[in-house]
């Protein structure tokens, strides 16, 4: 009769011995507390808490350093003179005007826009049909084509940039605008194909079959059925290519001539010759580059996830 019962009450608990949950929870707040907290994890010990503190602390330290580094560039671009003090001596805007003239930024920005625009348009125009073929069609050599499309993403740009520049100079395209555009197309095209292929696979093939029944040829199928459905994917891929091409340094560096430099290459040359020009005007140029890049990153983040923006390959697929 005296069944063991972990309650703090006395004889009044006799009624709960047959396990009446309602009565037991009303009259025993301790058991009710235990029942409702059973879902929460065990309270972590002091070691786990200290470890979590260390990890978060290190991350925040890293982010603060990066943030302060960017802030240094910003402040220096507005400073009249700054040497070793926490804040500069004065503030001015004239470095921006000087950088605009010294580095011929109007020409550089125009070239950057031309290159980036052409790369985005060409990689989408060439990549979407290729992704369609990879997603829908079976043809001999499909695996080989897939390998050719994947390789430029695995190999870093420096390794294939030098042989590519050699070939471009041999055919006379080295240093020209089209040389830079073609060079930047190499990592962008596979990227578009990788992003678009799962998009196309998601579209019901019966839609295309239905269109063909009504007499549409492939071009009409593309224009009226596929492209409207693919617009979100094309937008995402285009924005990703845009952000990556603005920051793509090595390929443009190897293939550009003196008047076909993009902004990042011009910035490199400016920092490289840092003794010749005032660091404030270099930082003004860096600020212009940073604002442009961050603006497009912000726009792109509305449509894609940060991981897609950063990694060169598709995210690891979730097991389904």
């Amino acid at each position, binding site marked *: 009769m005296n069944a063991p019962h972990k309650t703090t009450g006395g004889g009044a608990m006799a009624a709960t011995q047959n396990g009446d949950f309602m009565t037991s929870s009303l009259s025993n707040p301790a058991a009710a507390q235990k029942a409702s907290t059973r879902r929460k994890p065990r309270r972590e010990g002091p070691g*786990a808490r200290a470890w979590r503190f260390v*990890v*978060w602390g290190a*991350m925040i330290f890293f*982010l603060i*350093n*990066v943030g*302060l*580094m960017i802030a*240094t*560039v910003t402040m220096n671009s507005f400073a009249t003179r700054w040497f070793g003090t926490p804040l500069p001596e004065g503030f001015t805007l004239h470095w921006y005007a000087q950088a605009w003239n010294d580095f011929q930024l109007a020409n550089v920005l125009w070239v950057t826009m031309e290159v980036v625009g052409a790369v985005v348009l060409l990689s989408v125009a*060439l*990549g979407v*049909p*290729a992704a*369609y*073929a990879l997603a*829908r*069609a*079976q*043809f001999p050599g*499909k695996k080989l*084509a897939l390998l*050719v*499309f994947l*390789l430029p993403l695995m190999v*870093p740009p*420096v390794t*294939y940039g*030098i*042989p*590519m520049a*050699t070939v471009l100079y041999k055919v006379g395209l080295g240093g020209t605008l089209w040389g830079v555009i073609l060079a930047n197309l*190499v990592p962008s*095209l596979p990227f578009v194909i990788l992003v678009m292929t799962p998009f196309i696979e998601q579209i*019901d093939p*019966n839609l*295309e*079959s239905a269109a063909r029944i009504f007499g549409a040829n492939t071009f009409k199928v593309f224009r009226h059925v596929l492209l409207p459905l693919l617009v979100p994917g094309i937008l995402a891929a285009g924005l990703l290519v845009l*952000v990556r091409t603005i920051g793509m*340094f*090595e390929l443009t*560096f190897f293939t550009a001539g003196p008047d076909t430099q993009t902004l*990042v290459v011009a*910035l*490199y040359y400016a920092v*490289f010759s840092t003794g010749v020009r005032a660091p404030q005007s*270099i*930082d003004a140029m*860096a600020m212009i580059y*940073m604002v442009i890049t*961050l603006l497009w*990153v912000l726009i792109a983040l509305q449509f894609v996830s*940060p*991981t897609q*923006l*950063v*990694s060169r390959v598709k995210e*690891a697929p979730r*097991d389904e």
Partner: protein
Amino acid sequence: MSAVSMTPAPRFDGRGWLVSPALVCLIAMFVYPFAYGLFLSFQPMEQTSGIFANYARFFTDATLWPTVFITLKLAVPATLINVGASIPAAFALRRNSPATKFVTMLLVVPVTLGTVLIADGMLTYYGPNGWFPQALHALHLYSDEVRLTHNYWGVLISLVISGFPFAFLLILSYVTGIDPTLARAAGTLGAGPWQQFRLIYLPLLVPGLTMAACLSFVQAFSVFPSAVLLGVPAGATRVVSIAAYEAAFESYDYSLASCVAIVMGFVQLLIVAAMLGARRAFYSGPTTGGKG
């Protein structure tokens, strides 16, 4: 969503030709230059030397072969730091809270800004008169002159700044892909957090970790603007890409430059193959838990 098409596919699918413009472009701009470079590396500029003259020169010239070891000395620690620090960070942030989203968004910034801008920022911030040494001196943590730029440490720090977010985001996506009920099941059987990590998460994470380590290593090994701007390109941080660049654009010896690029690719391939081979020693199976 893979609905079966109602019309039967023809024997040779003409739509396959849609792949040809992109394929031709990539073959012309990527495959052909690679093959041409390989071919060119066996044709040294001096016509009288043998076909292996470039490679012999690479391994005997004191300005060329040490670059491989210098680059490894930079790339291996950078990869270890990036991947090693990403694992606990990804674990701490694996729940999809607003803090995770915010931190992830902030971490995208160094990667998209690129190594050139990071180098410019570091020269000012970590330079002898920047905020970092000023803070160190003000807090009396270090009284000597702080030398973090124009040496090995500057390049290493820049590799960590640009490489850590990349490794972190990749590993975060792998960590969130592991079913948490597996660890909870282990917890009900009495495993503590460290045991859960060591016996459940780590073996399941190894394929993803290897992939992230390979990609991080390849990215770190091909360091170029940071080594020039933040390091000592003629000495302590003379990396392989600098040697290739100088051969191509300062000596105009394209066959030697192709040879250096091929050696660079070969070393990367060796290390990646070694990492993938070492991964076989670990568990390799499904990473979802539960039934089946």
